[in-house]
C-alpha cells in the first residue's frame, strides 16, 4: 500500500475544500472497497479524507413524503430501518442480498454507490485495463469475462457495476444529493452511474471534490408488489451474475405501473422505460413478461464466458415479475426460488 496523509474532516465544508485542493485525494467512509483497492495498489491516494465523523448518519423524513438516507448510514442500518422495511422493502431486500453482515456493518450508502467494478483485470495492476490506465486496452473483452456486461458495453470496457443497493435505488428512482466546491446539486440515480463509452475510467457523473451527502427516496405507491431476485455462483456472499429489482403497482390483477432494473449486466443499473411501458395496463401474465424480457435483452451482446447471462437475465425477469405480481418477494434467507 502507498503512503498517504490523513485528515479527519470535522465539517462537510472542510472535507470538500480538502478534496478539491488535492486531485490525488479520496474520501473514505466504510473503507471496504477503497482499502481493498489500496491493498492491491489499484487506488493510490496521497491523501485520505476521513468523512466518518460528519453528521451524515441519519435517516430522515424528506419534504414531500419521501425518505432521506444520509450518506454515512451503513448498509445494515438502512436495511434494518423500520421505515425503509415498511415503505421501501425492495431496498431493504436488495441490501440484504449483498456482501456479508460484517461488510454491511461498515459499508455506507455513499460508498456503496461508488464502489468500483470487480473485473479481475481492473484488480490486477500487472495487466492492462482501460478503466485503471486509460489507453492500455481491455483484456476482458478477449479474456475471462464470465462476470462481465452484456448490455451497454463499449469496445473500451465491458465491466459491470457490482452494487445490489444501486439496482433497487434505480427502480425506486432515488436522487443522489451532493455538495461540492461549486455548491450543492441533486443527481437522479439513473444519471449518476454512466456507460463506459470512450471513457471507462469515469464511473459516475460525480466530480472530484464532490461529496455525497444523502440519497433521497421519493414517496411511492409501490408497496408489497416487489422483489429483488439475485442469481450468483453461491447462495450468499457473492456478487450478482444477474439480479432483477421489480416494483409493481397493482390494480387487482392488472399492472397499473411498473419499475424494473437489472444488476450484474451493465456498467450501471439497467433500466428500460419501453419495457416498463409494455407492462402498464396489462394483466400479470407470463407471456407478457416473456415479451418484456425479450425486449429488454434484444440488444444484448454476449462474450465468450458470459453469453449465458442473456438467457439467465430473461428468465430472471420473468420470474421476478411473477414474484412481484403475486406479492411473494424472494426471501434473502430461504434461498429457494419460488
Amino acid at each position, binding site marked *: 500500500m502507498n503512503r498517504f496523509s*490523513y485528515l479527519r474532516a470535522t465539517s462537510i465544508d472542510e472535507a470538500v475544500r480538502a478534496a478539491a485542493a488535492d486531485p490525488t485525494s479520496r474520501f473514505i467512509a466504510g473503507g471496504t472497497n477503497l482499502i481493498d483497492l489500496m491493498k492491491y495498489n489499484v487506488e493510490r491516494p496521497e491523501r485520505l479524507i476521513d468523512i466518518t465523523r460528519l453528521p451524515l448518519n441519519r435517516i430522515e423524513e424528506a419534504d414531500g413524503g419521501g425518505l432521506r438516507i444520509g450518506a454515512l448510514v451503513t448498509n445494515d442500518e438502512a436495511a434494518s430501518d423500520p421505515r425503509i422495511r415498511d415503505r421501501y422493502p425492495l431496498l431493504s431486500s436488495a441490501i440484504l442480498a449483498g456482501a456479508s453482515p460484517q461488510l454491511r456493518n461498515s459499508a455506507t450508502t455513499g460508498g456503496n454507490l461508488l464502489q468500483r467494478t470487480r473485473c479481475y483485470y481492473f484488480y490486477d495492476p500487472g495487466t492492462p485495463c482501460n478503466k485503471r490506465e486509460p489507453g492500455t486496452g481491455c483484456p476482458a473483452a478477449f479474456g475471462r469475462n464470465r462476470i462481465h456486461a452484456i448490455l451497454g458495453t463499449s469496445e473500451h470496457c465491458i465491466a459491470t457495476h457490482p452494487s445490489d443497493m444501486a439496482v433497487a435505488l434505480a427502480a425506486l428512482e432515488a436522487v443522489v444529493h451532493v455538495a461540492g466546491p461549486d455548491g450543492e446539486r441533486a443527481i437522479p440515480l439513473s444519471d449518476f452511474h454512466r456507460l463506459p463509452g470512450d471513457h471507462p475510467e469515469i464511473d459516475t457523473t460525480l466530480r472530484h471534490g464532490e461529496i455525497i451527502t444523502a440519497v433521497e427516496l421519493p414517496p411511492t405507491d409501490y408497496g408489497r408488489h416487489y422483489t429483488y431476485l439475485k442469481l450468483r455462483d453461491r447462495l450468499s456472499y457473492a456478487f450478482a451474475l444477474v439480479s432483477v429489482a421489480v416494483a409493481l403497482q397493482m390494480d387487482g390483477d392488472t399492472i397499473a405501473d411498473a419499475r424494473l432494473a437489472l444488476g450484474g449486466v451493465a456498467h450501471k443499473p439497467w433500466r428500460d422505460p419501453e419495457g416498463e411501458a409494455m407492462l402498464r395496463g396489462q394483466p400479470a401474465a407470463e407471456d407478457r413478461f416473456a415479451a418484456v424480457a425479450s425486449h429488454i435483452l434484444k440488444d444484448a451482446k454476449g462474450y465468450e464466458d458470459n453469453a449465458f447471462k442473456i438467457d439467465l437475465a430473461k428468465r430472471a425477469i420473468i420470474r421476478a415479475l411473477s414474484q412481484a405480481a403475486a406479492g411473494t418477494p424472494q426471501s434473502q*434467507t430461504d*434461498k429457494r426460488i419460488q
Partner: protein
Amino acid sequence: MSAGHSGSATLPERIPVTLTVNGEVRQLDVLPWTVLLDLLRDHLALTGTKKGCDHGQCGACTVIVDGKRINSCMAFAVMKDGSNVTTIEGLAKDGALHPLQQAFIDHDAFQCGYCTPGQICSGVALIEEGRAKTRDEIREFMSGNICRCGAYTNIVDAIEQVIGANGEAGR
C-alpha cells in the same frame, strides 16, 4: 518505500489513537495506513484474531467494534479512534468461557481452528443482534465467515444451542 513517493523526511506523522480493547484502554501512535487487524496482532500481540484473505472475503479477522461485527482487515486503525473493540481474547469472563465458546467445544465446531475466532466473534454479535431464529437464518447471517474445513453444520449447531438456551432463559 515504493517509488514515486516522497522520502522519509516527509513521512506523515504518527497519529495518536485511543482504543478500548477487551476492556483495557490502549493508547498508541500509529501510522495512518495501519490496518486495525495488524494493530491488534502486531502492536498489541493479540494474535487470536486471524488474517485469512486480508481482503474482506473470509471473515477470519472478525472483531466487534462498538457492538458491531466488522472485518478488521478492512479498517484503518486511525479511523476507529475512541472505539471499543472486542476480540476473541475478550470473550471469556473471570476464567469462564463465553457460552458460544463452550458450545463450539460441545459441538466440535472446528477442525483446524483458523476460522474459529472470527466465527465465534461473528456468532456472538449475531446472537446479540437477535435476528436469527431458524437454521436458514443462522446460515445466512453467518455467511460472512468462510470455513475452509467445512465445519459449517457444527457451527450452526453451536450457535443454535446458545440461541435456544437464551430463549429458555428469557421465558
